[in-house]
């Protein structure tokens, strides 16, 4: 099933084709330079010293041994570190408390940087960092996350419609679902190379937004933005943690100020990535559904308890997606937050939606079981006509189309209704489904693109967007080539440098919507101004076009994910031989890279279902499994048959390109589909991720 309709004329058909990545040759040959990899004859290395208490004050710092060590250039601590403007107004996404590094003696979380060594070599810096001795005045800390706490804060008034307490119906699902603390762990660690020449500072930075870094660093240092340059063409993943700035970048900036005319390099170690660059909050989701015997919902009630930090507030809005997924006259969604002496949480792929579609989508499976309904039918029966959260019409909503097409492709129809009914040798086999949801988010910041004719029919398109692996580089080349009516090879896109025109942050799956629409507008303006035979050097620029209907419609992308799970009857081992997703996310600009975005999201969702869990020891306030040996992420052998498909959805209301954003929706719903399939395989309902083999041992009789 698919929905097709007229498209804006594509001149070359470049939009919608699937060319290989334009930056591919540099990446496969390893010649693409990431932030830490710029050659500098004047390189120096920074090693952080991290607090070993979770709350208190640094009483004394003994730097003598470190300063005396070979190769040491500077030892920084709050008593001597360059001053930052701690009263500066930073861009809204930043956590100022986290960024005021080495500005006071206060310790707010275990692992907070309390000193730093800059040295001639990496080894010398590491060694000297171990020689810095700190004494603390320790205060009692509180890092105990629990939904049962009596001091939970209510960050925002609950969303209420009707009276959820008065909802009627004989079927009730009332359960608690939990997701753990998780860490983004992009494969490239957060890295900075910073050089201060006395007038201006240049940063090579692993970031999702060069302009955002420029503005923030300028504010912190009290410099004009023109004296801060941020270069970031290649970024080794981010998944949100490279959106806002974190402490390591500021440390490198302080190091550069302390040791001018040297390129100060800092890459967080994998262990430091578990304390210094944010994480996804754990969630406890109390979900209460009430429905009639036919599975029609009368009430939806979701309370998500999340972890925040005393140092700065970040609320993982896990109760958000339930606001608009399914129809029900009576509804309440709210958040409660435990503010603890821990690092501040941050964005991680689909913040809010990813954990927030676990509880409700498992609950919908439970509702289907309670009503004796097929889980797809349970969702179809609760399809809203208008967005339940706002009452607005949907620009497009193709959830049911995704469920139906997915069911066809997956072979859902053969599924036995009863759980535990299929056994193949030593394996119990089941299938499950869950819905995916991701809103069309307004871009973080404006965008502007410049198109220049370089001569001979060749064009250069520039804007400071960040391709963190999304495929933006290639897709923007396609958009420009399509509008200009030239072959792809005639367009060179330049990205990732604050010296280029402003671009919004790579976040909220907004890249194609904002940069794509902006490039579309700039290329259109170019042809309008200069015609088909422009002079060499002819230029045109355009800003991100306004979206005319943003306030009139509810705009979301949807999907359906199907999983086959096998649970071993001897060991409880859980395997996922098949994952299949169908998405409705507007126009797909590059089929090849879009598939990788969806499949990559689903793979991370599988990783969430089976592996990922950061274990915080509340006694000390630190994550104990802070490396890849103990914080497992999906490896190659975990992934078998994994497929992503999409519906050809045309939505001219979202933006001129009709693109809704595809970077995050793939991770939303995967874990619920796996948990639902595990239930179908075994009859054991697990309401927490990661699923563990011991969850199933009793049932499989091992």
């Amino acid at each position: 099933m698919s929905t097709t309709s007229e498209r804006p004329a594509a001149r070359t058909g470049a939009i919608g084709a699937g060319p290989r990545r334009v930056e591919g040759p540099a990446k496969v040959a390893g010649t693409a330079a990431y932030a830490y990899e710029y050659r500098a004859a004047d390189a120096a290395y920074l090693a952080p010293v991290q607090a070993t208490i979770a709350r208190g004050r640094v009483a004394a710092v003994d730097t003598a041994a470190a300063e005396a060590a070979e190769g040491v250039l500077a030892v920084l601590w709050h008593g001597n570190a360059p001053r930052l403007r701690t009263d500066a107004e930073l861009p809204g996404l930043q956590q100022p408390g986290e960024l005021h590094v080495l500005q006071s003696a206060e310790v707010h979380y275990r692992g907070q940087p309390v000193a730093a060594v800059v040295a001639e070599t990496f080894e010398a810096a590491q060694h000297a960092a171990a020689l810095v001795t700190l004494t603390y005045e320790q205060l009692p800390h509180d890092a105990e996350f629990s939904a049962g706490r009596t001091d939970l804060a209510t960050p925002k008034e609950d969303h209420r419609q009707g009276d959820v307490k008065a909802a009627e119906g004989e079927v009730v699902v009332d359960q608690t679902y939990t997701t753990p603390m998780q860490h983004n762990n992009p494969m490239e660690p957060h890295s900075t190379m910073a050089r201060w020449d006395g007038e201006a500072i240049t940063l090579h930075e692993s970031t999702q937004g060069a302009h955002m870094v420029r503005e923030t660093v300028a504010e912190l240092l009290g410099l004009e933005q023109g004296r801060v340059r941020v270069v970031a063409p290649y970024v080794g993943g981010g998944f949100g943690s490279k959106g806002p700035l974190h402490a390591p970048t500021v440390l490198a900036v302080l190091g550069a100020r302390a040791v001018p005319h040297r390129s100060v390099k800092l890459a967080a170690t994998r262990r430091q990535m578990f304390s210094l660059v944010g994480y996804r909050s754990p969630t406890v989701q109390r979900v209460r559904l009430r429905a009639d015997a036919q599975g029609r919902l009368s009430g939806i009630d979701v309370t998500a308890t999340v972890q925040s930090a005393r140092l700065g507030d970040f609320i993982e809005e896990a109760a958000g997606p339930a606001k608009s997924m399914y129809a029900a006259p009576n509804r309440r969604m709210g958040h409660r937050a435990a503010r603890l002496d821990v690092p501040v949480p941050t964005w991680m792929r689909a913040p809010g939606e990813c954990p927030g579609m676990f509880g409700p989508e498992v609950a919908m499976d439970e509702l289907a079981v309670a009503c004796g309904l097929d889980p797809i039918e349970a969702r179809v029966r609760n399809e809203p006509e208008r967005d339940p959260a706002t009452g607005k019409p949907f620009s497009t909503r193709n959830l049911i189309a995704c469920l139906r097409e997915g069911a066809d492709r997956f072979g859902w129809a053969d599924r036995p209704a009863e759980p535990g009914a299929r056994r193949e040798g030593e394996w119990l086999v089941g299938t499950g489904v869950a819905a995916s949801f991701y809103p069309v988010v307004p871009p973080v910041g404006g965008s502007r693109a410049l198109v220049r004719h370089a001569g001979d029919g060749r064009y250069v398109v520039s804007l400071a967007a960040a391709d963190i692996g999304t495929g933006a580089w290639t897709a923007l080349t396609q958009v420009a080539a399509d509008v200009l009516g030239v072959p792809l090879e005639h367009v060179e896109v330049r990205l990732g440098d604050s010296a280029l025109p402003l671009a919004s942050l790579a976040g909220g799956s907004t890249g194609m919507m904002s940069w794509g629409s902006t490039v579309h507008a700039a290329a259109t303006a170019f042809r309008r101004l200069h015609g088909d035979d422009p002079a060499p050097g002819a230029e045109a620029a355009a800003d991100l076009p306004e979206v005319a209907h943003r306030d009139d419609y509810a705009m979301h992308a949807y999907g359906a994910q199907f999983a086959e799970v096998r649970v071993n009857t001897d060991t409880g081992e859980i395997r996922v031989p098949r994952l299949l997703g169908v998405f409705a996310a507007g126009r797909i600009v590059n089929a090849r890279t879009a598939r990788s975005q969806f499949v990559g999201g689903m793979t991370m969702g599988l990783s969430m279902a089976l592996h990922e869990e950061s274990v915080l020891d509340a006694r000390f306030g630190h994550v104990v499994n802070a490396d890849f040996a103990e914080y497992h992420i999906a490896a190659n052998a975990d992934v078998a048959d994994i497929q992503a498909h999409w519906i050809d959805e045309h939505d001219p209301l979202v933006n001129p390109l009709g693109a809704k954003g595809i970077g995050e929706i793939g991770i939303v719903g995967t874990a619920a589909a796996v948990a639902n399939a595990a239930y179908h395989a075994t009859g054991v309902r697990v309401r927490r991720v990661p699923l563990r083999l011991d969850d199933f041992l009793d049932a499989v009789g091992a």
Partner: protein
Amino acid sequence: MHADITLTVDGRRHQLRVDTRTTLLDALREDLGVTAPKKGCDHGQCGSCTVLLNGRRVVTCLVLAVAGDGAEVVTAAGLAEGGDLHPMQEAFMDHDAFQCGYCTPGQICSAVGMLDEAAAGWPSAATPPRASAEGAVAELDDTEIRERMSGNLCRCGAYAGIVSAIGDAARRTHAAAASGIPRPAREGGRR
């Protein structure tokens, strides 16, 4: 403490003085400016730093530079001889077997080394016991590839593309001939 060593990297011979604490990975990246091998964990847990060391795939963050004295190192950059991409690299492009690209040079070196191991009859955990005993890997199917490539993590989740790229490259060209790298001895090896 420092030591003088010789390394041949991607066909170029280098004499250098290294801190004895320096890993081969840091010697390549920081001293020689060879940044195709990436640092993802520095603990032997991710595979990003994989190169072919004397013909075998090795994680260079776990090798001290001094211990690599005299070694021959081939990185992903060296596989692309004279600007022509290696068939494995072409296959990674065709199958979009990467997104951010940070794990990619390690994946590619690992894949080339892995095909040589399989061709030499080295079994994996996925090899049926009988085939293992006979020193023959009948067929390098997807399960074998997945198992043998599980030391190379990819946070972007490009595994599906990686497996099809490797299968494709293995079919397109005989692995050993394509790699141009001396096949490792079944027993021992040089390290």
